[in-house]
């Protein structure tokens, strides 16, 4: 089941089928918080990572299940001059820098990403507000992008930032999961602006707030406690859990 492994990424030559390390080797202790809520987060995180140790895929649906209406929250059209220019140009000048602890820092264009191996998945999106909707997402697995950039052995987390100022971090357990993709397509067409064009993240085993829209950059790091307030994400600083598997 674990067709994406750290060794596969690091060695590269044998591709993603390389075996050897299980999913648990990819679990870094996520950024925590003190107190009782920190203890509760810790329990939830470690129990779930144990339940998911064989890296199962989430359910995928047939096209008939796609929701007629897929809600949007937060930003639906970033008010950023560079973004507006890029949008007017069909995102032809959009670039996604992948930097940090990688052997080959690079900036991917939309065309670059579309030229890479693609994955299409129809999944249930669950928002912490309570709503859920089913959508079809097409994109490149994040593991492919990391493979191209050559993730270094000391990398443990990815810091992902967005055009509208959101940021979040992910351990490799989630980043390398086959269904974690950089999606440029939705329901058979281009990803709409209100859903995060040109590229959004899909992290299917967590709530919607981990699936950032309007991706701006990816940085590989070995630790996240020095970023912002050390909570590992912007929503963490707003009082939400870094890990959103529940």
């Amino acid at each position: 089941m674990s067709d994406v492994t750290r060794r596969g990424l690091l060695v590269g030559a044998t591709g993603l089928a390389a075996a050897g390390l299980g999913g648990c080797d990819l679990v870094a202790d996520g950024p925590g918080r003190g107190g009782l809520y920190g203890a509760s987060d810790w329990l939830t995180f470690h129990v779930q990572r144990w339940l998911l140790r064989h890296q199962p895929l989430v359910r995928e649906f047939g096209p008939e299940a796609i929701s007629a209406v897929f809600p949007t929250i937060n930003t639906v059209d970033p008010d950023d001059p560079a973004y507006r220019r890029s949008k007017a140009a069909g995102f032809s000048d959009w670039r996604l820098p992948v930097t940090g602890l990688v052997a080959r820092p690079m900036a991917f264009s939309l065309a670059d990403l579309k030229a890479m191996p693609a994955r299409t998945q129809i999944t249930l999106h669950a928002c912490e507000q309570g709503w859920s909707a089913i959508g079809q997402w097409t994109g490149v697995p994040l593991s492919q992008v990391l493979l191209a950039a050559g993730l270094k052995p000391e990398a443990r987390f990815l810091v992902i930032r967005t055009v509208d100022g959101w940021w979040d971090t992910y351990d490799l357990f989630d980043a390398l999961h086959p269904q974690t993709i950089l999606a440029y397509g939705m329901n058979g067409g281009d990803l709409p602006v209100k859903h995060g064009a040109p590229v959004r993240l899909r992290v299917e085993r967590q709530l919607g707030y981990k699936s950032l829209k309007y991706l701006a950059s990816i940085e590989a790091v070995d630790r996240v406690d020095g970023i912002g307030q050390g909570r590992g994400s912007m929503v963490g600083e707003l009082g939400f859990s870094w890990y959103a598997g529940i």
Partner: protein
Amino acid sequence: MGVGGSRLEHARHPLWVRAAHWIGAAAFLGLAVSGVAILLALPKLFWGETGANDAPAWVSLPLPVNLEQTGWGRNLHFLSAWAFVIAGGLYLAAAALGGRLYRRLWPDRDQVRPAHLAGEVRDHLSLGGDPRAAYAPRYNALQKLAYLAVLLVLAPTMLLSGLTMAPGVTAAFPELFTLFGGRQSARTVHFLTGCGLVLFLAVHLWQVLANGPRALMRAMILGRPERRDRR
């Protein structure tokens, strides 16, 4: 179980039962309050997999929409849930393995005869109460059935329907979706079962207040209903 073989034996609650009771009570309070806080972000209920503001709802609850209560609501909900699950799980395991579940909570044969049950219903509805209830040799049948319903039906349903809303859990156990018929169905079942538990709590508190609350409270706090616990 403990010392002494008097009829008071029944009225005594060992420490582990009292601890589970009060941890469970505090956790339930946290779960109920935070559950409502979370619900206010979308006070509508749906059946099936999907549901949202723009989708047809099964029920729109008469509650104000408030998107600002989700953060602390979720924090308190999952902390309380862990307390509830750990204390409740240990209690259930001890009660089942130690025989307490069968000895004290399972209705006796004479208690489940229709005539007896009808008499109990009449007694409960008379609202009179029994100030010596804390010293009763056994729980009445309705009381036993209510406790068993909470322990074996409502609380497990609450836990499983809650976990069905957790994407990290359903990734490992997609069968949960099948069990409840989808994520939104699980959410609706979670709400309805929660209402059932709140209803139980209301009746429970009424029964405590109506049946000699001082002795009952002493029993659940100190372990025995009589004022002097040892001579």
